[in-house]
């Protein structure tokens, strides 16, 4: 076997005897990707690659794995990757494609991830499989919809013990909208509680899918995985149209920023061929760049001589202006452009709004660049400049849900190392004023003078909740508490209920998901769509800390709930704000009236009991941790408020 080195040499097996152990370490990685390390070489130095056969497209399969959260998508991806020999035993780890720290910590997929795998099918032919693992959580369904745009088929995974759930349906509909071929896969058949026959019935009756194509597997044990690979090759179509000789038409479906190489652009080539040296333009803004490298997503990026119609890969073109690259845009050649841009992606609708401020005001500029770069990798994030009297300059941002918001917060801190504060999240309200105008307000700071408000509207959603029927009572109560209307339900199969309910969106972002999980002991699942705006009656709840109003803690709430919310906010802040050297009064106020109040007693004791020679290192670390914690606090007036406190106001006791 020929082995490629970072040093651009090709060595043969017998040369290995002269290698040091460090070299050997690299070889191990290289054999797998059979390409040079990603951070090296001019492209011309690459060893020549095999040219593709003429009927290349026939042997490509582009597909996504879609499912409800936790039904095992990433685990199945692991098995497929292993069957295609993409990874050594040493490199392997569970949920291999979940490569962000935050994904690994939370055990969920947040970003869709593509990997290109060679597969020799039973017919003896080599196929190229482009697999996209997608997230299951409702907040990230836009990731699924974008992933589907690069595919012809989808594996719809269903947990054999859980059956069809809210996002199973939601993601199935997305796949159908994109005219994808669907292979239903019943996963986790190894579980003692698995009931594959029942789930198969659901697939036929509930989902209306063809029973004959259903696959059964355990992504955990690997049972049934070989059959899935064969089904992918047999049942999913190759890229339909597309002509490698036509003018280039490449859809940008994702991007990320690399400080050395500029934007890494993920594309699906619809028509034409792209290769290093080509001059390309982004059709939305006509900026042009020279292609430096194209390649495939193996475990790492693997450079290629070209990418052509039907393929999924990446382009490096030294794009350092972050805003030039936009997911959904079309790339074409400057000298031989395609007649029109591809349709791109539907605009996503942000539902939750919150402002992001750097804890240290010096970080504002850094935060601005970080937001730009993050947006490249997360097209669903929107932001614009904002200012607060308590927190200085920041950004008003739109998110797809509370989890999306938390992810953005963590990514800003981890990937860009900027400690930030997020203000209490809000939805977007309509205020009809006495002068006949309408004001859209997603920021409590812009709450109009109550005297000028003629009427108010708030957004409603239609929630679809799936659960075992024993939780029906608890879920109904929860919906009623949250001002739910028009509750309906039916039994898709014995023992299970699908309930729909119209709810104010504001009630849903206020810890609805956590509460649903807790009242159904984790068995309830939830999906929603925006419905319309309905009349409401809103007031602004302000929070005063030691008599000083903290605008970042203000929220707009329904008048009927205002007192309870005021109390809740005070209690939460009492939990989150650590004792300080003086007593702290926390008050909730509506208009000028105080509706709730708590006090945090002064700190009286904080001292390390014993400290001698031997344990100095440990004791020092404790103090260092305290010191680091202080960096995550915002001083408002003279009170140190921890980062967590701002979001805690919206969380329930349990979470």
């Amino acid at each position, binding site marked *: 076997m020929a082995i490629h080195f970072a040093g651009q040499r090709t060595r043969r097996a017998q040369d290995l005897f002269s290698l040091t152990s460090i070299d050997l370490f690299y070889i191990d990685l290289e054999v797998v990707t059979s390409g040079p390390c990603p951070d090296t070489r001019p492209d011309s130095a690459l060893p020549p690659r095999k040219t593709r056969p003429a009927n290349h497209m026939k042997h490509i399969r582009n597909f996504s794995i879609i499912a409800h959260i936790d039904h095992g998508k990433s685990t199945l991806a692991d098995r497929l990757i292993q069957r295609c020999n993409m990874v050594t035993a040493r490199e392997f780890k569970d949920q291999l494609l979940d490569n962000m720290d935050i994904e690994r910590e939370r055990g969920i997929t947040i970003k869709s991830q593509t990997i290109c795998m060679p597969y020799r099918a039973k017919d003896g032919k080599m196929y190229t499989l482009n697999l996209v693992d997608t997230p299951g959580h409702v907040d990230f369904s836009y990731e699924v919809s974008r992933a589907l745009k690069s595919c012809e088929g989808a594996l719809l995974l269903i947990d054999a013990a859980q059956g069809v759930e809210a996002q199973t349906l939601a993601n199935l509909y997305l796949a159908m909208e994109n005219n994808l071929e669907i292979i239903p896969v019943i996963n986790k058949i190894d579980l003692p509680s698995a009931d594959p026959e029942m789930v198969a019935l659901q697939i036929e009756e509930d989902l209306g899918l063809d029973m004959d194509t259903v696959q059964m597997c355990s992504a955990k044990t690997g049972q049934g995985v070989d059959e899935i690979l064969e089904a992918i090759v047999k049942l999913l179509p190759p890229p339909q149209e597309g002509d490698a000789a036509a003018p280039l038409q490449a859809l940008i479906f994702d991007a990320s920023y690399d400080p050395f190489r500029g934007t890494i652009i993920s594309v699906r080539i619809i028509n034409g061929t792209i290769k290093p040296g080509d001059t390309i333009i982004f059709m939305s803004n006509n900026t042009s760049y020279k292609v430096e490298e194209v390649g495939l997503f193996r475990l790492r990026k693997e450079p290629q001589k070209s990418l052509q119609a039907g393929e999924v890969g990446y382009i490096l073109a030294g794009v350092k202006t972050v805003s030039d690259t936009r997911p959904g845009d079309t790339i074409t050649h400057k000298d031989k452009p395609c007649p029109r841009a591809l349709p791109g992606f539907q605009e996503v609708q942000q539902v939750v709004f919150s402002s992001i401020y750097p804890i240290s005001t010096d970080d504002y500029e850094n935060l601005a660049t970080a937001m730009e770069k993050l947006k490249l990798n997360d097209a669903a994030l929107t932001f614009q400049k904002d200012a607060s009297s308590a927190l200085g300059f920041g950004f008003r941002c739109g998110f797809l849900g509370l989890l999306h918001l938390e992810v953005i917060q963590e990514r800003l801190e981890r990937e860009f190392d900027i400690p930030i504060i997020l203000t209490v999240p809000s939805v977007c309200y309509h205020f009809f004023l006495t002068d006949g105008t309408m004001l859209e307000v997603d920021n409590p700071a812009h709450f109009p003078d109550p005297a000028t408000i003629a009427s108010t509207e708030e957004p409603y959603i239609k929630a679809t909740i799936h659960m075992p029927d024993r939780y029906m009572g608890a879920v109904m109560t929860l919906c009623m508490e949250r001002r739910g209307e028009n509750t309906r339900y039916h039994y898709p199969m014995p023992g299970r209920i699908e309930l729909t309910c119209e709810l104010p969106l504001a009630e849903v972002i206020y810890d609805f998901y956590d509460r649903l999980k807790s009242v159904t002991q984790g068995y309830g699942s939830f999906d929603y769509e925006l419905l319309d705006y309905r009349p409401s009656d809103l007031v602004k709840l302000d929070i005063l800390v030691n008599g000083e109003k903290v605008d970042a803690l203000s929220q707009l709430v329904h008048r009927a709930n205002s007192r309870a919310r005021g109390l809740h906010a005070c209690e939460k802040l009492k939990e989150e704000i650590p*004792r300080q*050297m003086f007593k702290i009064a926390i008050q909730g106020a509506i208009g000028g009236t105080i509706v709730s109040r708590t006090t945090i*007693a002064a*700190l*009286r*004791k*904080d*001292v*390390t*009991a*014993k*400290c*001698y*020679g*031997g*344990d*100095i*290192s440990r*004791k*020092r670390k*404790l*103090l*260092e941790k*305290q*010191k680091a914690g*202080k960096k995550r606090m915002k001083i408002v007036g003279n009170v140190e408020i921890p980062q967590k406190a701002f979001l805690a106001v919206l969380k329930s006791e349990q979470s």
Partner: protein
Amino acid sequence: MTGPGLYLHIPFCRSKCSYCAFNSVAAQRDTVDAYLDLLARQIEEYAALEWCGGRRFSTLFIGGGTPSLASPAKLAAIITLCRSRFSLADQAEISMEANPDTIGPELLTTLREAGLNRLSIGIQSFNNAILAGINRVHTAEQAIKAFHLARGCGLANINIDLIYGLPHQTMADWQEDLQQILALAPEHLALYELTIEPESPFGRLQAEKALVLPDEDLLADMEEATNTLLSPHYQRYEIANFCRPGRQCRHNINYWLNGSYLGLGAGAVSCLDGLRFTHESDPYRFMSAVEHKTTTIRQAECLSRTARFRESMIMGLRLIDGFNLRKLEKRLDISATEVYGPLLAELNSQGRLLRQGEMIRLAPDWLPVANQVLNTLV
């Protein structure tokens, strides 16, 4: 004055106390004796090294664990060995830790003869219900008896360790403990607020929220009551340490002034002029390493002057009278301003730190919340 200290660690106890995260495991006397034989080898080995043995040590401290679990003769032999192999000052303070259930006349006389002049008794509480609740293996009566026995054998410098803030402990319980102390009148007292160490049995209980502990206000009240009750009789000279005039523990003062010390035995830490190293902490792996003459050092770091300065600050400010900042600057050849910029002046003007000539100390009202100041200096 204090000088370099020599510390020996004995990592064995009769059984483990519920709050304890010290490096010790439950064992029988013969294991401890076997360990002492190997420790003796390590003493010989280090004494032969010029950069260790070449120093004149002011103090010797045998800690644990429960050193008194060993045979008296073996312990005496270790003290004698240290005195012959290392250079110990004439008036060297020689201390050992002991638990009440292991203190007997033979132990006391044998060790007195070997040169022991200070005994530290781990009593923790004089309340039998509380003692049982923290899994101590002795009673209050045994503790009192052990104290009188030590006195009777002529030990004129005795320390008692007590803990406050124990599960279910009330203010009245603690005040009774303090009264008992005043009746016994030891020369030295170490009074620790209970710390829940995550790796101790209490740490696990706390994680399960199964521990009922006094709240912060009660703890603060207990600390205040302690100071009020003891101040006519004892001088508080460190956050948790009290003594009769002139009876400070010299070995520990050396730690708080961040002086040099050599630690031998499992898990013992040494710090010699900024070179810090730690021995294998697992007692059995330590023994086997000594036995096979392989190195026992598991961690070593060379501290920068700035790091040493910062450590000296957070240690030294634990002393009620503080320490001589000028001397520290001279010793480390770096100025406080180079390390901290304007921070010390700020803390001074906020009334958190007090300066008096060359001395620096924590303001008395900040002692109960010392970490709030120390965490800016770390």
